[in-house]
């Protein structure tokens, strides 16, 4: 069992969820999303974000518009669609289920103290 592999898979599954959550707060362009994720201590390889955004957009969960920026060329602002909000609600309920299950198991495991192992 590769711990790094498992960790990255857990993070990958979460990533869509996080992006949608971020965009529900308001529209943002890619660099903004990255900054916000870093603020939330979610470290992602930036390159993974772009395919994800494109995929979400192609699935009609996100839409985008071009907006002039004070510096440099126009920016691609993403916003969440009605379908995206629906999708997010579903994700949220399943996330709640998962955390509930995990929390439940964790609280059980802490109440049962592991048996003392006598080394001698």
């Amino acid at each position, binding site marked *: 069992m590769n711990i790094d592999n498992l960790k990255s898979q857990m993070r990958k599954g979460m990533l869509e969820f996080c992006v949608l959550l971020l965009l529900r707060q308001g529209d943002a362009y890619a660099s903004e999303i990255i900054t916000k994720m870093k603020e939330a201590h979610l470290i992602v390889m930036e390159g993974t974000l772009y*395919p994800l955004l494109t995929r979400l957009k192609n699935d009609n969960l996100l839409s985008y518009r071009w907006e002039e920026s004070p510096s*440099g060329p126009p920016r691609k602002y993403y916003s969440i669609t009605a379908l995206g909000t629906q999708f997010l609600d579903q994700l949220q309920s399943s996330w709640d289920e998962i955390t509930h299950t995990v929390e439940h198991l964790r609280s059980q495991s802490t109440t049962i103290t592991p048996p003392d192992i006598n080394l001698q």
Partner: protein
Amino acid sequence: MKKTYSANIDGQIFNIDEDAFELLGNYLNQLRQTFSGNEGAEIVGDIESRIRELFNERIESGARVIVIADVNNVIETMGHPEDLSDNSDNNEKKEDINSSFISFNLPGKKHIYRNMRNKVFGGVFGGLASYLGWNANIMRLLYFIMACFTYFWPLTILYLIAWMIIPAATTPRQILEMTGEPVNVNTVGHTVLATSPYADKRVASDNNNNFLVTLFTAIGKTILILAGLLVGVISFAFICAFFCILAGMVAYTFFDSVQILSNIDLIPTHPGGWTQIWAILCLVLGFAVLSGLMAFGAFAEVFNLRGSTKAGVITTIIISVMLFAAAAILFIFAA
């Protein structure tokens, strides 16, 4: 000192070092391979515009030029192509991407270049050795023995032709292609870092037999100096002959004196004699130019002078060929 390019990245112009440019180009190419189709083009476009932002931050913090470290930073932040492939969709697609990646990485594209890091004269044997996977010194030794048996000239000419035809490996990409290593972000970055002053390193690094190398270099230089001297003397002789004939022609035209010309067995009063003298003049000048070029080349190589440019060499060769052609035509007229 490095050459810089100006690159248009998502609508903004950046000054970028040659090696950084090469590395970034490779990186973007690999991303294009990883993300294919319409969707891929969009993704790579987005990534490129992010790269522009990151570079812009560097420029705003005072950098004048994008260097290799900046590109490496960008690659570290964006991630290596193989980590980015969107494999959550389906495994089949992932396998597809991976297999295309592997075929892209296969060292099938091995090119022959002159090896500037393993050379005595022009790096022909260094390049051949890395191309064929043999030992350069053994090849040099075999060549030397064969040259001894064939009175030097044929093999020397062969070597010079190879030197002219085979391009030198100067960019990191060429160096990798020479050894047949896959050209990808990792290897190019590695080569760039390992060989920053990558051009014009005399044999030393990847050779285990330093004595042989020094010996060959010494022998090579001696031969070059002798050859250069010989050709230089020949060139000088041709130049003298040229001025002699010219003087004779002036004397005949203006003072009606055939003395100088007849001294060197040229008789302008014979039928066709005058045309023949012109022909010989052209021929002599042609030889003078050609041998002068060779002498110059030999000395430039030995003393590491800035040799003439390729364009200069080609122009000189064309001039001498035209002189030879003119001489041939004049000879035909004279006959």
